């Protein structure tokens, strides 16, 4: 057999750019989060609430990915933070190059928080490292509680799962306990928060999580540079 070993990552070019981004984000102490969820899970609404609730003067910016339209960027710009829309023109995910090309010099201005809203999709964005500190998966109670089992990749890789739209629980058959059990079966250490962007339930806890995570990034900037 004339077999020669290669042993490289298929997405090595993406990973190379992601590693550069991670290094740059470590140098500036910027916490970068990659939000992944189905279309309609409430990713944009969660980011809107987040921008509203950030302590005054926080240096934050948002990249929001969609296949078409500037709609999400228009929604998110109302809160006074820099926002750039990435329209992927057909691609079902963001990749590291797109993020690099849209950072707009933000890192040089002492950015503390970079929120990246991925294209609505539970599968493809999972494969592409964007140089982020953590992936956050947003699941809504309008979906099935078996989503973690059907799409294990993202639940495995996400540090935090946000169970959103909990205000709808009286009206939908969603079983919270089953959903949490499914998520933990795939990823025993996954952190879980329950939120409603309509009633505001759970948002304080989410903002605390975010503040703690940002603090950790500043106190251990080099440690997070090596994580994937």
């Amino acid at each position: 057999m004339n077999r020669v070993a290669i042993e490289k990552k298929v997405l090595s070019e993406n990973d190379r750019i992601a590693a550069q981004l991670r290094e740059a984000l470590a140098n500036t102490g910027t916490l970068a989060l990659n939000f992944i969820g189905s279309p309609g899970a409430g990713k944009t609404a969660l980011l809107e609430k987040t921008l509203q609730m950030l302590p005054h003067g926080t240096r934050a910016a948002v990249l929001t990915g969609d296949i078409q339209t500037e709609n999400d960027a228009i929604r998110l710009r109302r809160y006074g933070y820099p926002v750039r829309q990435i329209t992927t023109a057909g691609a079902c995910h963001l990749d590291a190059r797109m993020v690099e090309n849209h950072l707009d010099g933000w890192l040089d201005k002492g950015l503390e928080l970079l929120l990246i809203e991925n294209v609505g999709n539970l599968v493809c964005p999972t494969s592409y490292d964007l140089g982020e500190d953590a992936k956050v998966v947003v699941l809504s109670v309008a979906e099935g509680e078996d989503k973690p089992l059907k799409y294990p990749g993202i639940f495995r890789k996400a540090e935090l799962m946000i169970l959103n739209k909990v205000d709808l629980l009286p009206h939908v058959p969603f079983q919270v306990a089953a959903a949490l059990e499914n998520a933990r079966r795939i990823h025993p250490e996954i952190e879980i928060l329950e939120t409603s962007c309509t009633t505001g339930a759970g948002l304080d806890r989410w903002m605390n999580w975010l503040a703690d995570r940002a603090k950790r990034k500043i106190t251990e900037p080099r440690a997070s540079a090596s994580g994937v």
Partner: protein
Amino acid sequence: MHEMGIASSILTAVHKELLRYPGHRAEKVGVRIGEFAGVDTESLRFCFDALVKGTEFEPLELEIEWRRAGEELDLAYLELEDAPQEVAV
């Protein structure tokens, strides 16, 4: 959904790798895919075959080693039609 992009990345890597073995053709490329890599193997095969058809790569075969509970998406090996003689690039 993104399997076409993955298939295209595999072929780009094969092309680059073959530069090390001038005059050789690749018969098979082996990739290792973890359960949590977010890649649908059937869809990847379909895209791979569609991309290879009618190109210099034909009839390159894709062999997938599926890893339970793994996260990898790796290019593992190439099988060449003749014994390889590596040259420095």
